[in-house]
């Protein structure tokens, strides 16, 4: 680790970390990335954990998609993680792609970015000078751009565990293993019949910071009901900024964002109820 951080400091923006390489190598093939130096961090096995630490679930930057999917604890605490992982790429890509690579790539369609936004995760970033914590909202600066500086690397993602909460992820894709046309994740905590926490994460639809603050706010203090969910879904449709591309026209994606939010909220609420919250 010290070696990797020293190399980063020495080579700065000439260099790029390579984790699974399943986003960076395709970018290099397209000449969209032309790093002079690649720093391979696949030997940093001590960054590949998925484990609970007090009231947080911690995912090492080198945890592969497969590790998340294989973690019973992760799936039990946050069903949204397994919902999403089952539809991220395909099993062979999931053997390589990492948590760190996913969110550092900061592709607007990255599913884990939407999931972590809904769960209000925190990124831990390290450099030879020490570590710092950054909330997800501040982590993603824009498409393909994050708060990780040239001499820094992402070390882990921490997700706060909330008792009595439920979560779910819904994605529509053109074919198995493809990126989302649109996707929505929801995390809810319901106390005494009313919503005390709401997170709505969105991928591929141009949502600021991968979430919809308006829709989240609309749910707080409301009953977890079809009415409040429909209103939140409506706000999502209204707020997102999808662009038309080969995956579909703008109005279709807008519609999907709302509909998938509604479905994710329903399932998250059912799961929260199952938790007895």
């Amino acid at each position, binding site marked *: 680790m010290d070696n990797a951080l020293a190399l980063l400091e020495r080579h700065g923006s000439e260099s790029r970390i*390579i984790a699974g390489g*399943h986003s960076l190598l395709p970018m290099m093939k397209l000449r969209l990335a032309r790093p002079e130096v690649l720093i391979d961090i696949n030997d940093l096995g001590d960054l590949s954990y998925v484990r609970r630490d007090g009231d947080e679930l911690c995912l090492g930057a080198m945890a592969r998609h497969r590790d998340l999917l294989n973690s019973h604890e992760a799936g039990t605490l946050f069903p949204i993680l397994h919902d999403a992982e089952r539809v991220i790429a*395909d099993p*062979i890509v999931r*053997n*390589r792609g990492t948590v760190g690579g996913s969110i550092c790539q900061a592709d607007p369609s990255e599913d884990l970015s939407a999931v972590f936004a809904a769960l209000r995760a925190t990124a831990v970033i390290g450099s030879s000078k020490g570590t710092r914590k950054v909330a997800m909202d501040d982590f993603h600066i824009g498409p393909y751009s994050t708060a990780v500086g040239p001499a820094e690397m992402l070390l882990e993602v921490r997700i706060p565990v909330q008792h009595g909460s439920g979560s779910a992820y819904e994605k529509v894709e053109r074919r*198995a293993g493809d990126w989302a046309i649109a996707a929505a994740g929801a995390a809810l905590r319901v106390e005494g019949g009313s919503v005390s926490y709401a997170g709505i994460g969105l991928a591929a639809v141009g949502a600021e910071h991968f979430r919809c603050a308006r829709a989240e706010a609309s749910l707080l203090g409301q009953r977890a009901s079809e009415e409040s969910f429909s209103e939140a879904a409506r706000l999502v449709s209204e707020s997102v900024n999808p662009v038309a591309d080969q995956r579909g026209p703008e109005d279709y994606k807008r519609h999907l964002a709302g509909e998938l939010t509604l479905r994710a909220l329903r399932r998250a609420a059912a799961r929260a109820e199952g938790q007895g919250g």
Partner: protein
Amino acid sequence: MQVTMTVNGNEVTATIEPRLLLVHFIRDHLLLRGTHWGCDTSNCGTCVLWMDGEPVKSCTVLAAMANGREIRTVEDLERGGVLDPVQQGFIEEHGLQCGFCTPGMMMTARWLLDHNPDPSEEEIREAISGQICRCTGYKNIVSAIRWAAEHPSTTEVNA
């Protein structure tokens, strides 16, 4: 740069360009042409081989990243003139037509059966969902893998 790795049980050392992809190292340097190269975009899966015991798409791994690791390719399925049940299954069930996708399919199938000896059709379809076959319509590939599951030992094949 120099790399050393174990390929099908043999240690190999070579001097390569840092930009070389693992699939090209295997095919063009080691002349193991069983591993195919198709889309080059990690979509088709014909380049699947095992790295440290796990199937990976070798068009999206640098040869340099395989330094010190263990590689297994389709050439290693047959041992001492005896076909792996997966290979036999592809023959029995007509699991290939042009054969382009076959090496990747078989490497994934072998891994699946090692970890789940009796997979359902759904589990098989999920396992090969990152791989494309333009000939068979997948049905016979699934049957071939099921055949291998039902005939796990080569002795049984010969019986």
